[in-house]
């Protein structure tokens, strides 16, 4: 007779005589009562998330009414180096010169790359009465 069937007829669980400790494992002890666990089996836990402070909103300054005769600064942030943005800004300058009479462009590479500031460039833009700026190129 199959051993399992025989044991079952005797009312003995086969697990009690099984070789594998996994079969013979006793029932787990009851978990100590946690006050966080309700009688309905639901659990209350603490929240790890922290609310973020939203940034104060700052409106954009009014846009230009056109590009004719404007002074545009192109700011090169040296994203992984200055070369790519310089190529790009050079082509942009050519395009603008072709399409807008009197437009002037100035390309500036920032002193501290993309991470720092460059007060000298800002000062120069104010002194030269720049009309707009293009910042980049990241990617």
């Amino acid at each position, binding site marked *: 007779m199959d051993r399992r069937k025989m044991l079952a007829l005797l009312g003995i669980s086969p697990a009690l005589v099984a070789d594998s400790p996994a079969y013979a494992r006793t029932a787990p002890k009851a978990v100590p009562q946690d006050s966080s666990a309700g009688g309905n089996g639901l659990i209350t836990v603490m929240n790890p998330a922290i609310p973020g402070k*939203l940034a104060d909103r700052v409106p954009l300054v009014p846009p230009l009414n056109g*590009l004719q005769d404007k002074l545009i600064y192109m700011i090169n942030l*040296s994203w992984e180096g200055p070369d790519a943005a310089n190529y790009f800004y050079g082509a942009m300058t050519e395009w603008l010169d072709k*399409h807008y009479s009197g437009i002037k462009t100035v390309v500036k590479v920032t002193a501290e790359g993309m991470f720092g500031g460059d007060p000298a460039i800002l000062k120069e833009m104010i002194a030269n009465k720049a009309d707009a700026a293009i910042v980049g190129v990241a990617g």
Partner: protein
Amino acid sequence: MGRWAKQIEMQCKIPAIGIASSNIVHYATGYNFKYNNGMPIRYVSVPFPFTGQPRAVDVGYVAGKDMLTGQPLMTAVINALTSPLTAEEKVSGTPPEEAVEPRFLPADSEENLRRMFDDKEWTDFNSIILPTEKRVIEMLKGTSHKPDKVVTTVNITGGARQLTVEKVAINAVMAGATPEHLPVILALATQAPFGNSTSSMANMVVISGPIRNRLKFNCGTNAMGPYNKSNAVVGRAFTLMSKTAGDLRNNVNAWETLGNTMQYNNMCYGENEEALPEGWDPLHVQMGFKPTDNVLTVGTGWSSIASVGASQSIYPTHFLMRDYMSSFCASGSAATIVMDPTVAGLLKDTHGFSTKAQLSEWFSQNVQKTAASYWGNGVIQSTAVPLALQGLEPYASWRKLPDDALIKPFTNSRAIHVVVAGGKVQTMWFVTDFGIRRGVLIDDWM
């Protein structure tokens, strides 16, 4: 970039637009705008990658399309500079507070709570211990500090989130720590969050001082492997609190393109101080701490290269280490070498390095790489090129060198750290590009 454009708008009172690839624009106009910048900067988008392309490609982008609108790129530029402001672009002032995060989450089944923690990306997607109040209260017994004390303000991508002792304790429970670990994890919390960069950064956490033995941190065999509870839970806690306090979520404000598998445990291990050769000070003592101080040190970098190195006396260990270090970008002159005590012993007894500092100095003097290899690294392009353009040495001179000229990029030997760990089973070592920060006194968080 948004910060730059905002500065120009505010200080020069002129319109400023940004140009970037679309993944950066997505972040800039989303998370960064909401929590950091607050100014709805207008963007035009170029294809990615932008850098590293032949000149013709970057020039060609000008004649191409804006990746955001599909318009010709220059039309998009002109529109961004000239089109009237929308009502949204005129909004000013302090926005209403974001919904307050409740201290407790609504009661739910264990299964649902686990799913929610994963859905919110509060976990590392391994199972966590759910932070019931009872468990958190028990955890807080590990420190004398009040639960509402602010450990640090996490602002890596904005939001200025205040990481309190209680929040750290919640994360410690989630990581599987015990109250005895809490002071270590609080010290670690002062350094949160971990590196988060498109360049896929990683961290290293080194435990120093008597607490290593008291909490049974593994400093010996398998110091960096998954064989020890303290190493495992403290390292993991850094990940969990960085994610929860930094609100780091994939493709929202966590943009590591490859990610880094070291972020699961952050290379947490103890220095094998007992096995240091005579004259080689423990890491924290090198920083000016007392040998009896308990200190935690965090390093940040990207990678490690491993080797076994004692078999060839003709080409000894430190030569191999030197060669491998030349693969690193040497940003900030940073490197950290982790070596088995047998290697440290060889370097001292056979090769005459009587202190760690001597070995660091030797690396500084002997690691070389070509100028082309140095400048070819994107991190160096972003950080050292601006220094060169300002005329700062040695970067300005290095930039003028021919591609095949050799330079010594590790200019500061004090940024090259040596840590001894391991079980004397093999003459094994890792050279890493991790920059080590100043250590933090764990004793302050008891």
